């Protein structure tokens, strides 16, 4: 039973989780920032002269932008995952398992390592190309899955996603080999990171995050209907053709922008919506906002772990999310199999 109070509790706990994650990520690290100092820095951010210059520099110039970026990336991936799952009626779908992240990576790598700039877009060339690459990948993956099997079973879609992931991965390797850059740098980027990006990257992702999220939340009720199948949604009065592409495009916008600023970070879009659904039910009017909150929190925590667990070495954040996400992926698969048999 998913009552109103349970949903309200979900929001309260999610906000608390976000605040805790934020506070930890700001204060914990090679240099510990006292909690009181953190509050004073945020309260008096306008006037840095009165603050401890080392603490304020660490918090405002290094950790704060890093945490915000992690939060935005996590939120983007989580809500994109939630919407892909609803639209495809597939709890295993997320930007990573669908191969959309890989597609966006190819776009991003092309821009970064080939140094392409599209006239008129300037710095936004990177996210725009990523978004377009993400959308193209998604359309091709879904088209291929439908071609393989008209009913588009859960496993077929994921298998197609994996095939395309591998394929796009090789293209990435090929591009990297041809550019002659050092492989390690690329691989680190591919496994995802939100370090040393600064406010520029936040400015890059923010408009895409806002646009994509609003579009998806605007379509929450339609996603509810489409979770029962496109035909059913049509009969309930949903303009399926339009809504479907709005959702796919929004998911691609969010994924593409996230990949452009942080590389491929897997499984956030799988784990977070799954947890949210278990706690509060499947109504997308709540699943989507709650996925934003908890996706942000989760990635902030993962980033904190990534930079502290084997300090001073920093792990790629994708390693942490994969460690968390792959077992959850397995669990959902087993669960769904059982359901179908039972």
């Amino acid at each position, binding site marked *: 039973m998913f009552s109103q109070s349970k949903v309200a509790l979900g929001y309260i706990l999610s906000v608390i989780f976000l605040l805790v994650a934020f506070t930890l990520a700001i204060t914990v690290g090679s240099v510990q920032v006292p909690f009181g100092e953190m509050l004073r820095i945020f309260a008096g951010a306008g006037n840095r002269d009165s603050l401890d210059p080392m603490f304020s520099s660490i918090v405002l110039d290094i950790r704060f932008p890093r945490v915000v970026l992690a939060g935005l990336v996590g939120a983007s991936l989580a809500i994109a995952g939630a919407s892909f799952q609803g639209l495809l009626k597939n709890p295993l779908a997320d930007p990573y398992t669908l191969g959309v992240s890989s597609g966006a990576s190819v776009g991003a790598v092309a821009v970064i390592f080939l140094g392409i700039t599209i006239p008129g877009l300037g710095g936004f060339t990177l996210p725009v190309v990523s978004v377009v690459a993400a959308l193209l990948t998604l359309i091709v993956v879904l088209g291929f899955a439908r071609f393989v099997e008209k009913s588009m079973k859960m496993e077929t879609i994921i298998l197609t996603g994996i095939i395309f992931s591998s394929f796009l991965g090789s293209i990435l390797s090929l591009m990297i080999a041809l550019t002659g850059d050092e492989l390690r740098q690329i691989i680190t980027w591919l496994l995802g990171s939100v370090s040393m990006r600064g406010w520029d990257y936040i400015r890059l992702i923010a408009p895409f995050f806002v646009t994509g999220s609003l579009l998806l939340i605007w379509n929450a009720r339609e996603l509810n209907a489409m979770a029962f199948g496109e035909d059913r949604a049509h009969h*309930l*009065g949903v*303009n399926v053709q339009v809504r479907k592409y709005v959702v796919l495009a929004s998911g691609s916008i969010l994924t593409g922008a996230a990949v452009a600023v942080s590389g491929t970070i897997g499984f956030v879009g799988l784990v977070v919506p799954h947890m949210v659904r278990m706690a509060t*039910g499947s109504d997308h009017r709540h699943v989507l906002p709650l996925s934003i909150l908890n996706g942000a929190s989760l990635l902030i925590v993962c980033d904190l772990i990534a930079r502290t667990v084997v300090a001073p070495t920093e792990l790629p954040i994708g390693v942490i999310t994969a460690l968390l996400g792959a077992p959850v992926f397995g669990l959902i698969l087993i669960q769904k199999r059982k359901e179908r048999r039972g």
Partner: protein
Amino acid sequence: MLKATGVSGGYGEQDVVKNVSFELQKQEILGILGPNGSGKTTLMKMISGLLPCREGAVHYKEKPLSAYSAKQLAREVAVLPQLHQHAFDYTVRETVAMGRYPHQKGMFAPWTEHDEKAVMDAMKQTGVERFEHQSIQDLSGGERQRVFLAQALAQEPKLLLLDEPTNHLDLSYQKQLLDLLKEWTETHELTVISIFHDLNIASLYCDRLLLLHHGETVQLAEPGNVMNKETVERVYNARVHTQSHPELPKPQVTLLPNHGFEKTGLITKDLFEITGDHVYVKTPQSLKTLSSAVIGAGLGWYHHFVNRHVPMDYECDDSYEDMVRYAAHNGWNPADTVGMMTAVKVEDVIIREYEDNGLSVVIAVTAGVGNAVDVSLSYERERQATIGTINSWIFINGKLSDEAFIQAMMTATEAKVKALQNADVKDPLTGTLATGTSTDSALVAATQTGPFVQYAGSITPLGKMIGKGIVECTSEAIRIYRERKSR
């Protein structure tokens, strides 16, 4: 309200539905029937606007379907699909509430009192309100089917389209669902189009039936006109028998399997077991039987046949129950037994065999004429049931039509009357010639294998044997009865 004109269409190159036309009356239930692959579901998709028509058009309230947006159409037309798996667990309430989608305007549409009422009503009508807060994944197939019906009803549609709504439902919910729909056609001015697999259910509930075959209309008419033997056999390519519903003027179809399942054997004199208590026959196979017995009366299939002797002063409040006990006591399944009673000494039974050209008959008669009645003057009598009686059994090794059964009964009765006249049996009250006794009973049972007998009137081969046999056996039985009396 809905009108399809020359509708053709399908998925690939080939049209699955070809030139189908119909016009739906308000508050009508139209059933779509047809074998697998006949285009029922495709037609439904075109009616609901999911699939465009390649040729022809579907109009709803004088406007083509394409003139409606999905939302506008969903306010008028609801669809109950065939059941399928769902990935996420919505609660029953959430699921039903989605039916209000077409009535809500904008993203932050308020949940109105009317929305709430429509959802509650729909849940109540379909009996799912007690699952309100449960996940639909925890429900059985039938319960889930009802949840989606509630969702469709929450749309407050004028027209409801159903694709095999009774799938997954047990008998009682099938009836409940269809009764509910029938009721809504009257109380809510609902109009229904439904695909049915079950011809008999369709016949019971639909005002008209549209029978499809290879995507073409075979017939569009009332059930009585569509469900005739020839049409059903041709379209479904299966042997069937049609008859009317026992209590309603609606046709029903019964399948006829290609192979009989029972061993067969001829009915002969030797099968009869005669004791002081009863005359009993156990037949090698079930016999189709028409009788006026105490148990196993009417038309049915039976294995055991008993004519039980009871004392002259036999009095029992419930002779039916007593007969059932008697059968069970003797190890005969009462549901499989035809049982009669007589006060006559049953060891005096006359059993004779008759044969003509491959058709054979066994006739058994017990007769007592103490209560002889002249039926032409019986209105002068008080009603009284006493047990002095003529019980006539006719077993036929042949396949009889329904009309042959009735004529066999007539012929046997005529023969019995003749036998009584020949024996000069008189009604003791009126002193006129008797035509029978007050509690006569008769039985015609046939193996339904062997030669086919269409008629059994008095000059047919079977009628001749029955006439001769009944007269002979009854006369002989009366002679012995009188002998015993005069002793």
